[in-house]
């Protein structure tokens, strides 16, 4: 039987993988990929708590996830636009080299 514990472990693993990507990768796009993975892991958590929680009829987890997906879509679009803008400025997608605030 699959229980809440399994889902929580899975989402913890996924979240950590995403965090690892954010913290250790040089390429800005992979950093964004890591953020997406983290957001999805959080969504999984929300849905799992809703499914195993006592109030199935309230849909709170579902709606929260829905909003979080919308926010994530906005975040991805702005994030990628920033990656492009930053690339145009620094001529590199490497986050290590984006270390100045001026020219």
């Amino acid at each position, binding site marked *: 039987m699959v229980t809440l514990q399994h889902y929580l472990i899975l989402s913890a693993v996924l979240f950590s993988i995403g965090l690892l990507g954010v*913290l250790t990768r040089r390429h800005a796009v992979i950093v964004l990929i890591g953020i997406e993975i983290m957001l999805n892991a959080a969504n999984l958590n929300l849905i799992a708590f809703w499914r195993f929680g006592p109030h199935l009829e309230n849909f709170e987890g579902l709606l929260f996830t829905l909003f979080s997906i919308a926010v994530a879509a906005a975040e991805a679009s702005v994030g990628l636009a920033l990656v492009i803008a930053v690339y145009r400025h620094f001529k590199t997608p490497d986050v290590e080299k*984006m270390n100045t605030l001026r020219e």
Partner: protein
Amino acid sequence: MPDIHPIYLVAAIPLFPLAMSLVIALLKPTRGRAASFLALLGLGVSLVLSLYVLKLSLQEPGLVQTGGFPWIQLGPLPVDFSVIIDPLSASMLAMVTFIGFLIFFYSGSYMADDPDCARFFGYLSLFAAGMLGLVISNSLLLLFMCWEIVGLASYLLIGFWYQKPAAAAAAKKAFITTRIGDLFLFIGLLWAFKDGGTLLFYYHGNGLLEPGRVAWLAGIPAPVFGLSVAGVISLLIFAGAVGKSGQFPLHVWLPDAMEGPTPVSALIHAATMVAAGVFLVARTYPLFVADPAVLTVVAWVGGFTALFAGLVAVAQNDLKRILAYSTVSQLGMMMLGLGVGGVGAGMFHLLSHAFFKALLFLAAGSIIHGCHGEQDIRKLGGVARSMPLTTVCYLCGTFALCALPFGSGYFSKDEILLAAWHNNPGVFVLGAAAAFCTSFYMTRQLCYVFPGNHRSHAHPHESPWRITAPLVVLSLFALAFGGLARHWGILEYLEPGFHAPEHSSLVMAVGLAVALGGILAGWLVYGRRALPVGEPDAVAVTLPPVYRFLENRAWMDELYMATVGRIWGALAALAVVADLALNAVTDWTVLSIQNLSRTLAIYSDRVLIDQWGFDGLCRAVRGAGFLSTRAQNGQLQGYLRFITLGAVALGLLLGWALLRG
């Protein structure tokens, strides 16, 4: 029409101008005629509906009907959109659409040569929609939204000729100044929602303005001024009205707003929008009544504004600016009326003022139009000969404004003065003095503009019929409206349960005396002989300091520059100083460390060559610097790792707290 519930009609009234503003914005008609036709069409439908609603309301004077639908749910509290029919909204609807229609008609000719005519009518329609929505709204939130739409339209229209720097600055000034009042209004709104639990005015006995809820609000003590919550909310609402209606000390934007096209001045900054503040107070009057102290504040602010603006108007030379100060003064009069006499007196003066002030502005526009854009009264003159029809209309407007017997202003101002006499003699004195000023500056203006010869080289000519026709219609109203409305019992209609204060011949005599006295004084000072070009003003000759004080509008703008502007500047300067100081400190630290290490290095070089102290000290200093720069290295992921560290620390703390129990 009879089978449609009137509430739907009322809700539809603002939609027509709104739709037309959208259509004009989308179609962008290149010909001004098409845009003016569309705008007139939209407002015309609204006018017909409004008159129908007014008829319904007049047939059944006590009629109050509301209707709406829930918009959003905030926790347990619904926020509704709702509209209302009652005498207040019905009379305002009819006034706004009627005057608006005439002014739209007038603008069609006045603005015909402007290349941006379509934009003008789009804004104007938007304004009409906002104003009508404001009038019919039964919810403080909807009212606030329309209030802001109206403010936006006013901003856009003042800055309509945005190429002129003065117009752009005036638009900004109007927007920002009214925003101060709006902030207070918004706080009041939130407070009303918090303590009142609803934003609807009337809702089956549970509305904000209905006796039960008012008594409840009046029973809660507020943490400020020793007022009740009802008092504080009404004070905040009044602050909003002060901003919108140009009351002292937020009146500074209104005279500057005359930079907009003249029809805009007539419609927005004389007849309707600036009256919105007065209307708001009249609408929320039950809250004001709950705490009498607030009404006293309203009366005094109104009375002071009336006198102050009237005095300032005496020393202005711009045709429209004099009228603008006159508007401020009359708005103060309305507030005074609300403060001492109740809804009936204030609203009656609002309605009659709307007619004659719109008339005066439109006639002024006609004069300016005929004199090729000349606005300085010292350079105008002899208009009576070249523009006879406009002159007659202007005289009608002046007749009403000066409250001469049987004009519109006579009846409404008389009510206010009578109420003031009975309730608050101090304010009565202010009001009477303001009335004197009114007659005086109007006479001064007439003496400059109409008799004699032209003082400049322009050749004035009478305006076309599309401009003069609205003037004639409005003249009839300016002359007859007050008397007829009083005769038919407008006060009882506007304020059910109104009982007229005891009639006093003394008050009547005083009112007549100040009106005639002002005219007489004006005639003695200015009217006895022709005023030649370039001669200094008679008042300026006899009372130079007073004149200078008034000419510069009591230095209010300079005062604001010196206080608010100065404070802002000081804050900015302080920030610069702080920045420099910080820089100096850091520079000094770095330099001293550098110097210290250098001296030490030299010293050790000489004395303790190749000793551990030399290398060690340098390395320690470098290391410390290195460590501190490492924290600010611009490495994104470095920061992220620190954030992670923080998150881990928080997690551990949480776990520790949980384990502790």
